């Protein structure tokens, strides 16, 4: 055997010399029987595959939908440092704000504003280190917020123009949201130092 394999064509010769199995693994009737079983199993298998394919497609659609939706929300939030490091400090109100659906109702919007306000109130008035750019934005927003609050008080007192009152409330919500975002960014910058 050893000598045989040293010749170039020896392996070919040896392999071709191997005899076939004398009989098939099973006879004709067993083959027919198995074929009949396959015929029954095949439609069930294809139905299972179709169901699995549909499930995978549904999961993919949901995953794509979830991936596409959040960036419009997240884009509002500046993320100068990895947020995971600050996740413990981030108030639940802000986390809720980032994942809120854009088409949420007025009640949700009011509740969110209220939570953001509470969070803003819990922050120290002035950070230890002040950067002029963000600070100017914070001051500007706070000034505008105070002005809108005055106008709102006057409008509520007069109760003459409900549409104007609604517009002011809407503007106030946006201002609070913007202020929360800027303060949050400020916090992140502080943490990264």
């Amino acid at each position: 055997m050893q000598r045989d394999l040293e010749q170039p064509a020896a392996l070919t010769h040896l392999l071709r010399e191997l005899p076939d199995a004398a009989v098939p693994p099973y006879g004709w009737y067993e083959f027919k029987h198995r074929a009949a079983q396959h015929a029954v199993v095949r439609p069930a298998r294809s139905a299972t595959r179709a169901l699995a394919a549909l499930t995978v497609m549904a999961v993919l659609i949901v995953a794509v939908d979830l991936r596409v939706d959040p960036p419009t929300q997240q884009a509002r939030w500046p993320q100068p440092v990895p947020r995971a490091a600050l996740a413990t400090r981030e108030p639940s109100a802000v986390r809720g704000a980032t994942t809120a659906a854009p088409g949420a109702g007025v009640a949700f919007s009011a509740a969110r504003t209220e939570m953001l306000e509470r969070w803003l109130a819990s922050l120290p008035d002035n950070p230890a280190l002040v950067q002029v750019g963000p600070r100017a934005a914070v001051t500007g927003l706070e000034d505008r917020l105070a002005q809108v609050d005055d106008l709102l008080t006057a409008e509520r007192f007069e109760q003459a123009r409900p549409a104007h009152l609604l517009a002011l409330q809407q503007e106030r919500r946006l201002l609070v949201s913007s202020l929360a975002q800027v303060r949050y960014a400020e916090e992140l910058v502080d943490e990264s130092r």
Partner: protein
Amino acid sequence: MRRLGDIVVDEALLEDARAGREPAQRALYETLAPATASLIRRLVGHRALAEDIFQDTMMIFFERLPEFRREAPLGAWLRRIAVTRCLMYLRSPWQRARLCLEPVDCGVAAEVAALITPGYTGELIDLERALATLTPTARAVVWMYEVEGYSHEEIAHEFGRSVSFSKSQLARAHQRLHNWFMSAEQRPTCSVI
């Protein structure tokens, strides 16, 4: 070894089988099945799986028999079906994952017992054991090239790989088989047999 591609079938028998006459189909099965089963078992190396692929192959063969256009001998046509089914299995990710988990170079591999054809003795068993030490891909390449007479281009086409893949697989398999027989005296006796 009677190669599947060399089997010639009587025209009248073939016509009867194509017409769906069961006695002719049975005769055809008994003529072609042993060589088909041997080929599949050589290529796949796993007895239970080889039986499944054999069943699939023969079912496809009888389903498509009315479409047979006599462009090649019937045996070669059936061989093509069998090889395609086997390579589908060998190329599947499941099979690749299984191969990663299994030891390749074990003298008394678990598959040896399955691969050895009942009734073999002496040198033939040695050759079977040597073949069993090859990876399924290498074994398939060796078998297709050395026994079935495929060219490197045809093997590359069947595997969807380059010609150099086929050549390198064959060269490495030759080397491995050569080493196997060179070190035969140092190996322990095969307890599986």
